[in-house]
């Protein structure tokens, strides 16, 4: 089985579309969106915050679940809806995890999930997308922008190609009511998400 890494120069939707048209010999648009159920098997959701501007503390959520609907013909029609299990947070120490789950922070007792729902996706460069959506943490909802970059496509034998995305963003934790330890922890929280998706199979003729 051969493994070939291609550094993509074109959007995956366009590649799939082109191949589909070649194989089918028709100038028709490929049909509707493909829905992916994603969870922690397909990536990771992490965050980091600065301490005294000197060093960073990182954490990640071990469990999350959601759905991504991608239309290969038009990636800007992508829809994302994800819920993150707050209690699944992992930090460098049990004490840190306990602190971060406490009422002053994520308040897992009252708000067991973080929700993100996309409202729009814009292509802002080759393989770069700006995802706009609503993020709900601790019962507070704010608009959130994320930058999604297609970092690689992997083809293994006859399997459908897998696309790897790195999604980054920043938020101010005080906007969600997390103002504790402001004298030590920075207000800006960096988000780093990794997701991989198997792209839709090329539709067979009739």
């Amino acid at each position, binding site marked *: 089985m051969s493994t070939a890494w291609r550094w993509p120069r074109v959007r995956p939707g366009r590649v799939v579309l082109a191949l589909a048209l070649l194989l089918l010999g028709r100038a028709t648009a490929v049909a509707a969106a493909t829905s992916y159920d994603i969870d922690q098997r397909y990536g990771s959701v992490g965050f980091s915050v600065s*301490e*005294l501007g*000197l*060093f960073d503390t990182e954490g990640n959520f071990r469990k999350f679940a959601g759905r991504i609907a991608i239309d290969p013909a038009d990636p800007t029609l992508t829809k994302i809806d994800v819920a993150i299990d707050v209690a699944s947070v992992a930090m*460098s*120490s049990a*004490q*840190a995890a*306990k*602190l971060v789950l*406490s009422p*002053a922070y994520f308040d897992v007792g009252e708000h067991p999930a973080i929700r993100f729902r996309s409202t729009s996706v814009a292509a802002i460069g080759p393989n770069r997308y700006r995802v706009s959506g609503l993020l709900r943490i601790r019962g507070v909802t704010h608009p959130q922008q994320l930058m999604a970059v297609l970092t690689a496509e992997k083809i293994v034998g006859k399997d459908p190609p897998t696309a790897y995305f790195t999604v980054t963003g920043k938020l101010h934790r005080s906007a969600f009511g997390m103002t*504790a*330890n402001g*004298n*030590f*922890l920075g207000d800006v929280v960096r988000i780093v998400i990794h997701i991989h998706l198997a792209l839709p199979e090329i539709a067979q003729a009739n």
Partner: protein
Amino acid sequence: MPRRTDAPLRWSPAQRRLHWAVAFLILLAFPIAWVMAAVPFEELLLKFLLFQVHKTLGLLVLIAALLRLAIRFRRGRPEWDPGLPGWQQKAAGRLHAALYVLLLVVPVLGYLVACTAPVQIPTLFFGILPIPAIVGESKPWFPLLFALHRAAAIALVLLATGHAAAAIHNHRRGLPVLRRMWSG
């Protein structure tokens, strides 16, 4: 009575000052260790600062101990006070040697504890100079090193207390041992 050796007549000012400096540093660092561990995690800044102070004090102890050893090798020590019986001189000599060893071992173990800790906090000497970690986080080593550091520190404090008690006892018997270390 003519002196039988070429030992110095008295403790030098450097030897005396370093001796009391180390005692003072330990008297601060030891209780801070218990407080810094007891401070709740919510008090992040306070906890961080106490850890930095403790680590800076520990590094100062290590530096002072190395200086003292260097001076001791170069200059030696005054002769044992003849008022002390031979067995006490021997015992004290061994206690001092143990203290020197612990003065080196405890800070080094503490440094390794900081290196292998799961929560990687930088060590800032005086809050300014970053001390690089020679090894990284280690799940198996950290609890062991931590237990060793704490045990050695407690041993150091116990031995130092015995050392101080003996010095005060001898002082009250009229021997010049304490005065020699205090004022030469």
